[in-house]
């Protein structure tokens, strides 16, 4: 379902969180560069994946797109309109179209409210379906749609399992018929057998409702399963962006290659045939990121005097992937490391 016009476009998105010192008079002494110059477009009807490890800025990006955080600089446009600094009633109108599904189904639902009123909350906020019977009917339809028993309308979140709670979160997110759903790690807190139920539900809803989804996860297999296009983030920047098949078929950025190589394969024969490429060290601090290419401190292909001096731009490489790297992986290197499925 790709090829549509862009629904969301972000350009040079930057978010710095100030680090403050002092007890009474706090003065900024630095900044955490959570997101540092990120640009991408999400096409109507597609699922756009953002992957990366802890601290890479993927969740901050999600919060910027949904306007839960204000940008430091850069622009966000939604359906061609600049929404970067929208406020008041126009922001409220935007929120009808942009909804979010959160990671933790335990803390994202108010424990003192019934499931019915949690799912009806979006209608209440936007003054829709004022008639009580009408609203209840719609909520029960939604519950049925996401695989919950509509008779459980008056139950409280604690009476539901983790998977069912995530279904409540999904029902709430699709209640207003939004155009965009931003799902931040929607299945990482769930058991394997339940994960698959929620992933299938999201795919079904997308097909039925024509949703556009920004899907954020750290699990590369899940992202591959869900997404049409994928952006890989490292320390606040996108290091590679490509169609799912291209990204997983021939990763060009060495970081993408290392990530894929690190995923344990649930197949003992394949697992033993693979040559694991292990990244040394830890992710550097985002308050003091490395110069130029941020991955150069851990990269196997690092060339002194180039990678640490010249910042690589996100440019097309062989096979159509956009990658920010001076020395992208070649097909031979990918085959030798047996990173991908084909090998």
């Amino acid at each position: 379902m790709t090829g549509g016009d862009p629904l969301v476009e972000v350009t040079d998105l930057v978010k710095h969180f100030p680090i403050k010192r002092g007890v009474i008079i706090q003065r900024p002494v630095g900044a955490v560069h959570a997101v540092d110059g990120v640009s991408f477009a999400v096409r109507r009807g597609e699922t756009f994946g953002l992957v990366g490890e802890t601290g890479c800025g993927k969740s901050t990006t999600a919060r910027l797109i949904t306007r839960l955080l204000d940008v430091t600089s850069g622009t966000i446009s939604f359906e061609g309109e600049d929404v970067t600094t929208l406020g008041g009633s126009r922001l409220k109108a935007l929120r009808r179209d942009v909804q979010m599904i959160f990671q933790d189904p335990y803390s994202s639902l108010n424990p003192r409210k019934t499931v019915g009123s949690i799912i009806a909350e979006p209608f209440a906020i936007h003054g829709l379906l004022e008639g009580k019977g009408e609203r209840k009917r719609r909520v029960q339809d939604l519950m049925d749609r996401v695989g919950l028993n509509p008779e459980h309308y008056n139950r409280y979140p604690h009476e539901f399992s983790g998977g069912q709670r995530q279904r409540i979160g999904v029902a709430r997110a699709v209640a207003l018929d939004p155009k965009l759903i931003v799902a931040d790690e929607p299945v990482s807190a769930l058991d394997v057998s339940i994960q698959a139920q929620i992933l299938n539900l999201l795919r079904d809803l997308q097909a039925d409702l024509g949703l556009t989804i920004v899907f954020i996860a750290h699990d590369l297999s899940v992202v591959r399963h869900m997404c049409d296009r994928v952006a890989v983030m490292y320390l606040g920047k996108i290091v590679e962006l490509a169609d799912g098949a291209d990204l997983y078929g021939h990763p060009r950025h060495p970081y993408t290659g290392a990530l894929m190589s690190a995923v344990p394969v649930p197949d003992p024969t394949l697992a033993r045939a693979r040559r694991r490429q292990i990244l040394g060290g830890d992710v550097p601090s985002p308050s003091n990121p490395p110069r130029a290419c941020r991955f150069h401190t851990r990269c196997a292909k690092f060339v002194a005097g180039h990678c640490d001096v010249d910042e690589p731009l996100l440019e097309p490489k062989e096979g159509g992937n956009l990658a920010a790297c001076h020395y992208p992986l070649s097909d031979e290197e990918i085959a030798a490391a047996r990173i991908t499925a084909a090998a």
Partner: protein
Amino acid sequence: MTPLLEVDQLKVEFSTKDGIVHAVDGVSLHIEQGKTLGLVGESGSGKSVTGLTVMGLTRGRGADIVGEARFDGRDLVSMGSDELRTLRGNDVAMIFQDPLSSLHPYYKIGRQLAEAYRTHHPKASRAEARDRSAEMLDLVGISDARARLDAYPHEFSGGMRQRTMIAMALINEPRLLIADEPTTALDVTVQAQILELISRLQDELGMAVIMITHDLGVVAELADDVAVMYAGRIVEYGPTETIFAAPQHPYTWGLLGSIPRLTTPRDEPLLPIPGRPPSLINRPSGCHFHPRCPYVQPSHREIDPMLEPIPGEPGKVACLLTVEERRALWARLRDGATPDEARAAVLGQVAPA
């Protein structure tokens, strides 16, 4: 070869105000020196309680423990607390999922490591313990180890804290390491580092490892044998190759069908297991998996299957279908049939009985 650890009919029950929780219900397993056993299951399957009980960590919490866990011929379940304390952290060690809550935030890393050493080496001097601590930190790949002994846990990243936990667990060169979801809280590149580290240390020190995890990928990479747990019991047990190539239990099929992989076509739909894990207070009658099993027969609601050897295979399974039925079902599932199609073809039923 006599097993290093032999768990025999272990049962752990907890009394709560809602009723008795049957956390572990007749688990038997064994592990030889130098080998790795993967204990797989979802939340509430009893895998962690099994590990904790072997370590004697469920004692005195309202737990009713029956059965044996013989380590080197000595039963850890009936052993006195003092005797157990000489083994725990010494011959048998454990690492936990959350490295932040497992380290004391007030004490320096070096002091916590040294404590683990001096507990079992009472004659060792402070300096010796410090040397040994630095040596261990170095072994687990923390650079500048001696200087880092004076760091506090909050100064370490998640990966470094988990390495520290491993260093602490291994400081007395245990013969058995129980690792309870050691990489679940970590990023995938750090996970790869930690798994590599555990298997390298295992080769160097010759210890046995019980790897408790929900991640079939981790098991496939590390384990020699796999035990799949469901609702407090082992439902399938065998060599890793067999479990992945020719699994026999419908729950194992369900697990394998519900994980997205990097190696299968993207459009292949996931086949989740319907429903959810049962309550361990009121367990389903008969086969505990029957409410979620697509291949259930009327008799399965009454008869409780035993974990029995599979004819002609090295593994064991607790399933009431015949071995021919299971082979035929798996052959179809492996070729891409849905559970409904497989059931119709093999058992001739359109809907679950």
